[in-house]
């Protein structure tokens, strides 16, 4: 069995929330922010991946802005886990322009997924520009 990285991911911290889960992510580029949002989600649910069979998927999403793409992106990953039991270790963002997200992801079936997440939400969501790049805080409904 190969373990997905269960060490706390870079550019990620948990944020206090009474009932649900919240986390802050930051990155030098929007693409890095999206990758870290995915890794943060996988870290919070305690995902571990099987060594094989490995597979590659292409994900294409439409939205009205980058925030809507970020929510759609995480909900797509939740769906791929629930419907096909898949998790992804390598994530490459090919296109991200405020209307379209195109990503190539490589992964395998999950061997461990400890938490049921209903959805990623829009609650108070805004992607902010910072001196070093971008940041956002996400709230997950658990």
């Amino acid at each position, binding site marked *: 069995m190969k373990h997905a990285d269960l060490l706390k991911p870079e550019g990620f911290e948990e944020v206090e929330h*009474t*009932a649900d889960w919240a986390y802050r992510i930051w990155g030098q580029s929007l693409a890095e922010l999206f990758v870290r949002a995915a890794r943060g989600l996988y870290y919070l649910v305690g995902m571990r991946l099987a060594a094989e069979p490995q597979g590659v998927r292409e994900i294409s999403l439409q939205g009205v802005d980058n925030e809507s793409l970020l929510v759609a992106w995480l909900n797509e990953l939740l769906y791929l886990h*629930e419907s096909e039991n898949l998790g992804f270790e390598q994530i490459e963002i090919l296109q991200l322009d405020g209307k379209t997200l195109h990503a190539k992801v490589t992964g395998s079936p999950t061997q461990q*997924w400890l938490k*049921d997440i209903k959805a990623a939400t829009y*609650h*108070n969501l805004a992607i902010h520009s910072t001196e070093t790049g971008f940041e956002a805080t996400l709230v997950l*409904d658990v």
Partner: protein
Amino acid sequence: MVTKQDFHRISDRIWEIPTSFHPAMKVPVWVFADEEILEEALGDLSITQAINVAQLPGLVGHVAIMPDVHQGYGMPIGGVMVSRVPDGIISPGAVGYDINCGVRVLASEIEYETAKPFIGALASTLYRNCPSGVGEKGSIPLSMEELDTLCRQGSRWALERGYATAEDLARTEEFGCLEGAQPENVSQRAKERGKGQLGTLGAGNHFLEVDAIEEVFDREAAQAMGLRKGCLAVQIHCGSRGFGHQICTDYVQDFQSAVIRYGIHLPDRELVCAPLDSPEGQAYLGAMKAAANYAFANRQTLAHHARRSFQQVFGTPTGESHLRQVYDIAHNMAKMETHRIEGKEIPVCVHRKGATRAFGPGFAGLPPEYRHLGQPVLVPGSMGTKSWILLGTAANEELSFGSTCHGAGRVMSRAKAKHSVRGDRLRQELEKSGISVRAGSMSGLAEEAPQAYKDVDRVVATVSQAGIARKVARLRPVAVIKG
């Protein structure tokens, strides 16, 4: 930043934030609380979220906040919002991801003292028969065609297949079926998720519990509901599973462009909404009803499994069930109702998020044996603590639009609960106090520790003092089944 000084005290248990607090507020916010509960609510974003809700277009009356309030992800949990028909709004985010999450209670005439030696075996049997936990599949897989039928019929689907009795349906909110469900407005994804999950509890705060009826406060009502002091009862808390989650996810995403089209300004994008009379609003309403009916059928199927479990452990010579339904209520839903607002009866859409419909005596939608009493309200406490059966009142009509509380309400984050409580130790403590625990995840158990919740007795005392519900009976847990 809202503080206690911003409230105007309407009565001993009702606190108002007037529309003058924020220029965008369309209606005031009323919080049903004692001073301690109000101060706790000011400790997180609950009240700020309620003020956000009060800014949505087309609202009438006031936003009512129940004493089990806590911070949510758009609308606070414990919130009631009323919008005008036909030009008010409907908001998938305000209903939430677990559409028609709710509670069902079944009562038996089995004395706890007699059953005591068998409670462990009963807990294990229930745990085996009622699938729970992350990604668990149900025992009744559905074809796509049958799922569509179930979405239209709700509990009637279960009745036709032998998982329900006619009395179960009579004793379910809306008789277990919202008419006008439109499975054609549900995505293929939601259907894929829903078809394998019927008859499952799920994880998180969902549970199945066996209780002993500890105290009866209203003998006439308790008798009508079949609640006998010292006897066993069963509570089932769950909703529409991945089916409802996906429907909400789909519509929250779709409505992001609808708000631009309709020029709706949102204080929080999770409160995304569309006019009720718009094609988008009607499409969501039809899909939401499909999820609501799925949830009714889901709890009905779990009730069937609970009856089977009781039969396996306690048996009966005639094969007759030990468990009779008390009632089944929804606590995450948008409902088309008529309410008296500013002296006039008007049609409205009532969103209840972590709040229970609690209609008073005389309501025609109740079975004859309950009609003179009012609607039963089922209020589960936190794990290991007491639960309550209440009744709706006539007075809540104008105070809370026929609504009351839904549970204890969290006060501590899941992360903090997990750090301060160890699941295995909590399980030992519960077992030592006479509660059998069957749980798939120890960390999940820790997150739901009683310390993470408010005192449900105080919440119930508050709704009772405020006149928006009255006490019938208190239940004490003897077995808890969780994912």
